[in-house]
């Protein structure tokens, strides 16, 4: 039994406060009441090796260390739960929020306490209506029970929590764009520095944390750093929500130790490839990650040991590409998404991504030339981290660049055969551009 999902049932129901408390919920707050200081929580989280589950894998303890603390620190400070989850292929945060909403409330209170931040926002993507409903109920229950809105027993710390439903846009998941969205502005990212930890929501110190990351906090406080580390098979502490989608026998989600291999996920948990198709490649965690192919399947999946030349783990929810799916069509679908979701702030992303999508469309329709291949390559080079304003465009280039590497012959075949050898369904592709 792994901590995050132990009480989540697969029948789609969720626990109310009473059941949550019965199962040991809100117990971590008693440790605070018993005298655990904010800096103790911070230290514990640092020692646990917890790394952000939003895709970046940044060590949470390190992130917290930049938040100004002490009596002279600016007030108020904010904790924001990033529940935007719009990365295609990713659905792990939804499972947690729908299945056990109080876990997030407890995690938020814990983060708030650790950073002496008295206000929290849950930034939820607009399409997650069920999550919104359940979180609203959980928040109301927590207010009624005094976990929210009142000083925690034995402390002067009081936490307020609000739910914000977004109006859609992938870029809202980027933490600084998210902050602008929360301020009721266009979700355009902000330049860093200054980092949100010092200048964030309404100019105040703010920590943005992925939903799954926050779910870990109460367990770390309850069971300690060593226990948490022992859950994992590698350096990074804890378990991870993994998921598989695509043509496999049992698509789904599982909480597993960090360091579980892709092969294990694919073959054991997802039951292997569906009938009649063979494995061709996978994106390990959402579409902003690079392709992994057969030879990479035995890498342990975590943040610190993932080989850089292969890519990144991302969100841990993998998308499987089978041999009946056209890699060009696959990447075209991704790039159309990215082009549509660019915020429009910086030139390379705003103008480059639609160009890339149109080029891929030309491949798909048999109008591409070998010059187009070099134009695609040019974009993978120029839309690199640091060249664009935020991580969206570089994320968009990760699958394209690796596809050009692993599936180059497919691209070339589209040029030589004048169209997509897989597809008779070009009509569907028209729709998106």
């Amino acid at each position, binding site marked *: 039994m792994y901590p995050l999902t132990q009480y989540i049932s697969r029948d789609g129901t969720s626990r109310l406060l009473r059941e949550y408390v019965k199962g040991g919920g809100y117990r971590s707050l008693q440790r605070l009441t018993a005298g655990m200081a904010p800096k103790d929580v911070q230290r514990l989280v640092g020692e646990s090796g917890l790394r952000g589950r939003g895709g970046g894998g940044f060590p949470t303890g390190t992130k917290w260390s930049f938040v100004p603390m002490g009596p002279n620190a600016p007030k108020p400070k904010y904790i924001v739960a990033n529940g935007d989850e719009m990365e295609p292929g990713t659905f792990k945060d939804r499972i947690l929020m729908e299945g056990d909403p109080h876990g997030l409330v407890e995690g938020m209170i814990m983060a708030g306490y650790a950073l002496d931040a008295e206000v929290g926002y849950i930034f939820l993507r607009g399409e997650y209506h069920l999550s919104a409903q359940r979180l609203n109920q959980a928040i109301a229950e927590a207010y009624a029970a005094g976990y929210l809105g009142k000083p925690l027993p034995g402390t002067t710390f009081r936490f307020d929590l609000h739910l914000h439903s977004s109006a859609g846009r992938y870029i809202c998941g980027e933490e600084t764009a998210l902050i602008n969205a929360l301020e009721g502005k266009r979700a355009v990212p*902000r*330049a860093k520095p*200054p980092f949100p930890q*010092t200048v964030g929501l309404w100019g105040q110190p703010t920590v943005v944390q992925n939903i799954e990351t926050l779910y870990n906090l109460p367990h770390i406080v309850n069971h300690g750093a060593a226990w948490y580390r022992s859950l994992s098979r590698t350096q990074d502490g804890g378990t991870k929500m993994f998921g598989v989608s695509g043509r496999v026998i049992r698509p789904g989600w599982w909480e597993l130790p960090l360091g579980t291999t892709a092969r294990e996920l694919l073959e054991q948990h997802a039951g292997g490839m569906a009938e009649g198709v063979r494995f061709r490649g996978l994106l390990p965690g959402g579409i902003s990650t690079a392709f992994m192919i057969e030879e990479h399947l035995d890498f342990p999946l975590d943040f610190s040991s993932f080989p850089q030349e292969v890519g990144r783990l991302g969100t841990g929810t993998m998308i499987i590409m089978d041999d009946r799916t056209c890699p060009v069509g696959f990447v075209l679908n991704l790039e159309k998404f990215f082009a549509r979701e*660019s915020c429009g702030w*910086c030139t*390379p992303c705003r103008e480059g991504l639609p160009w890339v999508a149109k080029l891929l469309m030309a491949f798909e329709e048999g109008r591409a030339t070998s*010059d187009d291949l070099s134009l695609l390559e040019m974009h993978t080079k120029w839309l690199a981290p640091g060249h664009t*304003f935020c991580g969206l465009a570089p994320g968009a280039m990760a699958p394209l660049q690796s596809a050009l590497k692993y599936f180059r012959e497919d691209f070339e075949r589209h040029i030589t055969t004048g169209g997509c050898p897989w597809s008779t369904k070009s009509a569907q592709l028209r729709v998106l551009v």
Partner: protein
Amino acid sequence: MANIIVDNKSYAVDERQNLLAACLGHGLNVPYFCWHPAMGSVGACRQCAVKQFKDDKDQSGRLVMSCMTPAANGTRISIDDPEAKAFRASVIEWLMVNHPHDCPVCDEGGECHLQDMTVMTGHVYRRSRFPKRTHRNQALGPFIRHEMNRCIQCYRCVRFYRDYAGGRDLNVFGAHDALYFGREQDGTLENEFSGNLVEICPTGVFTDKTFFHHYTRKWDLQSAQSICPHCSLGCNTTASERSGTLRRMTNRFNSQVNGYFLCDRGRFGYEYVNSEYRIKHPLVRSGTDRTKPRMPEDVSRTLEFAADRLRKACGIVGIGSPRASLEANVALRGLVGPQQFYQGIDEQERQLLFTILNVFRTGPVPSASLHDAEQADAVLVLGPDLLNEAPRLALALLQSIRQQPMERVDELKIPQWDEAAVRNAVQNRRGPLFMAGHRQTWLHEYTTDHYFAAPDDVARLGFAVAGSIGPEAPTVPDLSSDVRDLAQRIADALMHAQRPLIIAGTGSGSQATLEAAANVAWALHQQGKHPRLNFVLPEANSAGLALLGGGSLNDAFDAIRQGKADTVIVLENDLYRRADQANVNAFLDKAQTVMVIDSLEHRTTAHADVILPAATGPESNGTFVNQEGRAQRFYQVFVQNGGVKESWRWLSDLARATSQDVERESRVATWRTFDDAVSATAMVAPELARMGEVAPSASFRLVGQKIPRQSERCSGRTSLVSHLTMHEPPPPADQDSPLAFTMEGYRGPLPSPLISQFWTPGWNSIQAVNTYQNEVGGPLRDEMPGVRLLEPVATKAPAWFTSIPHAFQPASRQWLLLPLSAVFGSDELSNRSPAIAERIAKPFLSLHPSDGARLSLENHSTIDLAWQGTTYSLAVHFEPSTPVGMGGLSLVPEVSGVRVPAWIDLFEAIKTERKRRAA
């Protein structure tokens, strides 16, 4: 100072800059779009990428945006790095994916920053072969044309319009590559500074609509340095002409005055020069019967005729003008003699100006330039309605409120150029800005606190502030506790500031507010602060005229009435704007001969026996003294056809023709060139002694050459008159300035008053200003920003002003009627420009709602107001900001000549009320 290494060469730079500004300051060409020296960096366009290296061993380096990277000591970068160059070319390529290919016919062509940057990066071939997106354009009113297809999404327009200028009706809509910059719906852009979009937009999305109506390529324009004649601030402009038509007015950078921006009155008000009401030929009525028409005459006969009348005159009255140049006024003064020279303004205005001069002459506090105002960290405005009376100063105050929050920005170690970060850190925090007056405008959204009250109460607030600051300053008895608290809060804020600024003005006609402002400034000075004072004056040369001295218009009227004179010379002045009709009529009727020198027909010219057609500002040389006491030179752009001459020249010709040269110092009759006029002017008052230093004299040459007004690339000159003659006529000679009406002459660095067009090879747009500055955004190289004629000499405050007015008491039947200036409508000259005329609101009377009720009026109804001998049709506006017992009258052309402030019995004056409700 820091050292940075660019392409292996070391440069000394200011480490408070970013790398882009640092490089541009050293003449290193780094292309950019979204950055602007006055608006900082946001890192959106990615055009300014350079390669940064960790140290001299680092061979690979990484691309950084130079605008977002501090110029820290030891920073090592390469602009020429092949990867950086290729990336920059790529940025242009991306921008061109959707940009039209119409440079040759685009009206921005030739001064397009995008064009310049494209050439700079070397991007040449279009590789994208997909269709371009297109947009619908909006109708944005008489000033601005909109052509969205040219947009490169640099976000500068919204950043200027909203963040810098406080506008709200322009924004960006949509997302990804479907962005639209415009209004919610078609309609006039409301903000008073919208015209700057023309220069802010790096391509041709927002262009000057008035220019479009008589379009000419930038390189075909003949240009010269102008000073805006439309208010007292003296913004520097470039006036441009072709074929005898003034084509446009653009901003001319002056670090101490207007910097990069103008207001819309200044930019679009120029077309009075092309007006159909221009007087182009001398007109003479030979008999004494004023019902007979005037006949056109040639110049020499007109002079003869006029001289004859002057010789025979039993006393001449010379009426000067605050919109005429100093030289023209001095010429008139010289012709008629100082005793017979009258300032051409009413007595009240003369008194106010006199008070202001005295405050500067005797007090220890200096006046504030616009630049000082931008830098002020606490501001108190006592009276004036800045948006309407001195718009560019309002824009400066919008920047000043950012000063104090910068402390927090510094604490957070955010560089001040990092605009987006600064805005995020500052959020809604604003430095202290207090405004007291009798009218609410949108500027009040930015105040710390405001106070709407009668001028006397505004003055009392000011006196109370002074009393709270300086123990010796007189205090105000019987103040309400609210006002006392407000005064205390203001005093605290001013005392807390490093560079407090106090602003008052002549607009409301209140002497007491001026005195109160002086007391506040003096009290601050006494407390060891470094305050500055700013007085908004009525017109472009009000300060210059005040320095010359002379009686008021009322005195002139007396002189004629009492028979001390029978001949009048009116210089560039419509007396009907300055005194009531009956008085002016009586004055003009009584005078035997009325001569008017002016450029446009108006009610006074209608009475003249002799009209001498005067050159307008852009057709003449002259000097204006702005409200801070800064003398600035403007130059002739082109020679007007017909009998048009500069006013000072007419006067000097008259002096010669009459052989009358009453005043010895100025010796008007001997003037031949503008330099003569300048030297003479320098003699007439001690404060004018430095007139000669304002700008180089006519004999100034560089490498033995004059400075051309035409661009190096002026095309088609030889064919301009080919339908008339095959010979290219010689250009007019210019003996008055170092400039020439040609394209031949010296090209190279110039003293700043002689720079008309900013241009450097590769920099054809207005962004070329950067190449004229040592530090980008700072002063021009060897800038001559005009000469401040009034610097404080006193170290101690003179005696405090002590006549504190009584609190304003509403009267039972009478209302105190006050003027409400209108940015479009109150200035005599700009009103005659069609684009401005389109923006002039209908005249209205504003009343407090309770007064409206007392008068049984309805909001938005129309009334007829019979007053001072005329009936005016006015809309009624209920405004809670209009103090009870007072009315505000909008000063638009229909009501010009109404004498306010004055008491009025509205029960009596409102004759009929047509209950027309506005839709």
